[in-house]
């Protein structure tokens, strides 16, 4: 079965544009959310980890006669970077990669729903006809002009994790040679308002595993990866960040929003990834947890990690403390970060907690440290109990 390698990265988030920028910013001081400028955001806590205005891409505004919003623009910006990084456009031109063997897979919760929100609040004129908010992957696929499969899933905060899982499955099944895959999420009034209604919003910032945490704070981002069949990457001499050794999936089948308190299914997802990737828990050198700052979720994930690793301290990199909860893009961002951790062989410093929650027995080193091993796990969980764990491994140069 073909192995799936990451050969390109593209990222845009509140920390700016570019995977290099992300990596540098993760080593700088903590970043905070901003108030949204949306006059219709009638919520007590209108805080979002917004992409800086200077970094917000302005094109495209329409695609195939339909209005497209910032989620599509973020995705296009991240996709261009990932394609350039991997040299895919040139590889297609040279005939090293066949365009019909390139797939585009995307995860997003709200897609371009912001277009509807701006139309409803009178900011933009209503568009005529029926439009779907899920055009994002099509807009990205049009960059390549290829004929390979295009797919979108909306598994909420795990969506891009499932997109990456589907990408690996497609490569293993021989359905694609290259998959441009990731997630995109832009500010949505509706999402912020409903998180608020469910009491799941922190009034200050996103502070996973902190005793004082009161919920999550959403963020904007797109993270795209070029995932490539090993035989194709080797043949064309592509440089490789890491291998995606496996993805483990599970579903709580428990409650629309609350996690199954015993964590049995998130444990199952991690163990499936490890088993499928022929990796033991002892080999895991770092975890990028789901860790959203939501009261119960952080406790359940901490306990599941403790069950998996026992008393062995495994460093976590708590990414959302820097970028907020980027929903459909969150897993893509976590996997991109995990790939950079493996590639640079270093774990960035965590944002220090004000006070650790003793119910969350996790190790969050606040100094940068060398990576002591060859495997990293990234977790993503969503409403509906949709869980995914992505196992990445170093690839010998």
């Amino acid at each position, binding site marked *: 079965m073909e192995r799936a390698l990451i050969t390109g990265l593209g990222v845009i988030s509140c920390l700016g544009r570019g995977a290099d920028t992300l990596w540098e910013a993760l080593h700088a001081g903590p970043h905070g959310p901003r108030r949204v400028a949306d006059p219709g955001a*009638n919520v007590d806590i209108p805080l979002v980890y917004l992409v800086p205005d200077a970094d917000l891409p302005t094109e495209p505004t329409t695609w195939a006669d339909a209005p497209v919003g910032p989620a599509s623009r973020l995705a296009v910006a991240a996709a261009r970077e990932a394609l350039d990084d991997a040299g895919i456009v040139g590889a297609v031109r040279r005939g090293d990669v066949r365009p*019909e063997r390139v797939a585009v897979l995307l995860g997003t*919760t709200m897609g371009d729903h912001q277009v509807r929100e701006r139309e409803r609040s009178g900011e933009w004129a209503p568009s005529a006809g029926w439009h779907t908010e899920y055009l994002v992957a099509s807009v990205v696929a049009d960059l390549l002009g290829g*004929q390979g*499969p295009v797919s979108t*899933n*909306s598994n909420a905060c795990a969506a891009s994790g499932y997109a990456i899982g589907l990408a690996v499955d497609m490569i293993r099944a021989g359905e694609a040679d290259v998959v441009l895959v990731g997630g995109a999420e832009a500010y949505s009034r509706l999402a912020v308002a409903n998180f608020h*209604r469910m009491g799941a919003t922190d009034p200050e910032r996103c502070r996973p595993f902190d005793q004082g945490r009161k919920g999550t704070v959403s963020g904007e981002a797109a993270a795209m990866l070029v995932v490539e069949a090993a035989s194709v990457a080797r043949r064309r001499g592509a440089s490789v960040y890491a291998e995606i050794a496996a993805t483990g999936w599970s579903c709580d*089948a428990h409650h629309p929003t609350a996690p199954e308190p015993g964590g049995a299914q998130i444990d199952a997802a991690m163990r499936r990834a490890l088993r499928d990737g022929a990796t033991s828990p002892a080999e895991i050198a770092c975890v990028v947890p789901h860790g959203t700052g939501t009261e119960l979720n952080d406790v359940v994930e901490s306990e599941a990690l403790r069950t998996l690793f026992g008393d062995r301290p495994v460093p976590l990199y708590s990414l959302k403390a820097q970028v907020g909860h980027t929903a459909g893009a969150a897993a893509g961002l976590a996997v991109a970060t995990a790939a950079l951790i493996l590639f640079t062989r270093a774990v960035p410093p965590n944002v220090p907690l004000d006070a650790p929650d003793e119910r969350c027995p996790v190790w969050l080193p606040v100094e940068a440290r060398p990576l002591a091993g060859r495997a990293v796990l990234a977790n993503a969980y969503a409403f509906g109990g949709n869980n995914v764990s992505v196992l990445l491994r170093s690839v010998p140069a």
Partner: protein
Amino acid sequence: MTARIVVTGVGAASPWGDDPAGLWADAPRDAVPDGWFDVRGQLGARGYKYLPPACRYLLAAGRRALAGLPAVPGPDLGVAIGTNHAASALHADMDDTVLRGGADQLSPALAPFFAVNVFVSRLAIEHTARAFSLTLTTPWTAGLESLHVASRSLRLGRAEVVLAGATEAGDGSAGAEEGAAVFVLEPRDLAERRGAPVLGHVATHTGFLPPTGPDATAVVRAAWAALDTGPAPVTLFADDSAVGAAVDRAVRGVADELTVLPLAAGTVGPAWQVAAVLAGGVRAAVPAGARSGRSGVTEGHRTHVIAVASRAGTVAFTAVTREGGS
């Protein structure tokens, strides 16, 4: 060739009846009648009041698809369902509430459903499907795509049995689909072992065509090679975009008979067409026993191809083969 992954259950909830055999379309559908879904009659008296319509349709179709089949252990069951506008009407209501009164006025019971995967995960909860729950939102093709994702997930061992299909609810716009279809897919040897009736099998190929100057020749050729079907009658759901026209032109070169229907807003119509074939509900396009089309095969095709081509560039082709005789 004996297909390794088969369909063992089909269920529908539709404004045109709930018997999948009655859902074959050979002409554009009428407007959706009001009040077609009776919640109490379809689902029961309690527990469904606060479920949005697309979730109710999905649960009803899921129960019908699984009716009479042996129960599947939760860890072995996965769910992959397509939708484009299951949440759209709810989103509009919620946003109106936020704009007029603020987030505090939102219904706490409905709040989780702002995330469309919660609709699908409710089906997973009902059947304790713990292998996975996947909500596909690819424009127009997600219903057919769900069959493909289900098959691949079964082949790769992600589940023993997968519920695939689609669900949609009215979103206030003309022509938006309403209703659901659910299919039960599993390996043939498992179906035989557990005594599940094999209705038939499906194979799906998906692709993308750029909206400007698309040429569908290659993608249609690739689809027919992947589907391994030979000449077959084709139902193409296409819109009036350049992509729809390109696929229409290219399919004419390979279709045994071609019916082109307008592509309604949503993902469920093509899935109903698949359901109708599996349930033996295809109306004869030519008189029984007559020689038809280029292939010269007699009427009573076991295989039909259901295709979608949309202005989003998304295209999908599903070959549906009924088990046994025609």
